């Protein structure tokens, strides 16, 4: 695969847990400033791919490239400056005994970036959180506010890529809409590149123009959001997932 024009390339990625092959030769490429979606059911390997990209699992074979450069097994500090991840459960990903101020300062400290006093209020602003949130603890915030903090923390070092693992599935639908709108706005303003994993086809199709469908550790189909909406699917699993999703949309 030609990696020169793609910001992220995953080439024949294989991931094993003991004797189980969780990901069996997954390949895709994502251009800068675009959003790539990965959908599938639990156990399809979608989150495993994302976690390997984020450097959370060193046990893989194949190739992963960022901006044309092959990624080492152990990621460098420079990598985390360019690539950040947002997890599903904002409660589990924020330290319960640390204030929001501390949570937002942490990535700056880790990257050796100064100016936290200016950066933190700006980061809160960008995700539309009131400044009063800064010295509160995670349990004092709502689920939607916590996910905004997680997004602010991922963006505070000005990365180019956000890896989003089911970023809205723990949220109420009204809050989901707000967070998805926020992600669209931020992408446009900062020319961010997203890779989003979700089981929800409508959510992925809303944010990502291109979508890979995974089943049993393989990408069984890659199609545009437009083709998915129109029902131009080629693999039966995609058609099945689509039918289950659209069935509920008809009143």
């Amino acid at each position: 695969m030609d990696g020169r024009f793609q910001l992220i390339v995953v080439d024949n990625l294989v991931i094993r847990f003991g004797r189980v092959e969780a990901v069996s030769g997954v390949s895709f490429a994502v251009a800068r400033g675009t959003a790539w979606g990965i959908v599938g059911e639990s156990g399809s390997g979608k989150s495993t791919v994302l976690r390997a990209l984020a450097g959370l699992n060193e046990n893989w074979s194949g190739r992963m490239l960022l901006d044309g450069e092959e990624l080492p097994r152990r990621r460098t500090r420079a990598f985390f400056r360019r690539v950040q991840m947002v997890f599903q459960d904002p409660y589990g990903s924020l330290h319960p005994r640390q204030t929001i101020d501390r949570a937002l300062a942490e990535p700056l400290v880790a990257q050796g970036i100064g100016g936290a006093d200016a950066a933190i209020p700006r980061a809160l602003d960008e995700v539309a959180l009131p400044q009063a949130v800064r010295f509160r603890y995670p349990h004092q915030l709502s689920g939607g506010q916590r996910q905004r903090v997680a997004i602010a923390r991922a963006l505070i070092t000005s990365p180019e890529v956000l890896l989003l693992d089911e970023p809205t599935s723990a949220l109420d639908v009204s809050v989901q809409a707000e967070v998805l709108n926020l992600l669209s706005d931020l992408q446009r303003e900062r020319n961010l590149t997203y890779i989003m994993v979700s089981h929800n086809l409508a959510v992925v199709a809303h944010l990502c123009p291109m979508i890979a469908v995974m089943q049993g550790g393989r990408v069984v189909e890659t199609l545009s959001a437009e083709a998915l909406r129109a029902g131009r699917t080629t693999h039966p699993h995609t058609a099945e997932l689509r039918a289950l999703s659209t069935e509920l949309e008809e009143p």
Partner: protein
Amino acid sequence: MKVEIANLSIAFPSPRGPSLAVRGVSLTVGSEKLGIVGESGSGKSLTARSLLKLLPPEARVRADRLAFDGIDILQATERQMRSIRGKRAGLIMQDPKFSLNPVMTAGEQIAESWRLHRKTSKREAREAALDLLAQVQIRDPARVADAYPHELSGGMGQRVMIAMMMAPDPELLIADEPTSALDATVQAEILRLMEDLVSRRGMSLILISHDLPLVSHFCDRVVVMYAGRVVEELNAAGLARAEHPYTRGLLACLPTLSHPQARLTTLTRDPAWMDGSN
């Protein structure tokens, strides 16, 4: 009516005085499938659990009427409640991983639930457990009966839960987000299974969920809750004709495959929804 609730309020003590989580809810359930829909904190689970007296001890419950099959739940003793819970009214919760006993096999748990309410031998109970597993469409009942919960998938675990709840042949089933932890393909199967069991046995079902489209496809009637109150009651087929701005807002902010929106509609919460003055 199997269930009658009139003017139910549930309050919790807080440093600033009692905080009302459920405020004046009234509803009835007959031999039908009733859905209760709302966001987290709307009071939907508390309302249903008050029927089984399964609320945290600090909860203060008041109602003009809270009755199951004519029995006044507010006055019922623990002993009376034990003859209702499980036996006459079953509860299915979201995640079978946390509801099943991890050190008992699936078959033992179903058999226990069977024997608890009937005087039968162990062998008969085992036979009944296998039969129930077959009824929840498990292809190899004998294998699943001998499996421990961690050896079962989420969908399989939820089938075991349903089999367990069906064992005493209850009249009412309360299902609290029974499929939220499951994949879409499995969710559809579990709902079909519940629908089939409920209609075959003429039971009442209360399905609690945050998913309005799902509930309206599955239930006969839907009650929409917001901030502890019922804001709208709908015939499931009439979802498209929902009138309350909250219900309409919930539907509008969902991304869909069939109607792409460049920007999602967000919900503007009207303070008037809190006190019902709209």
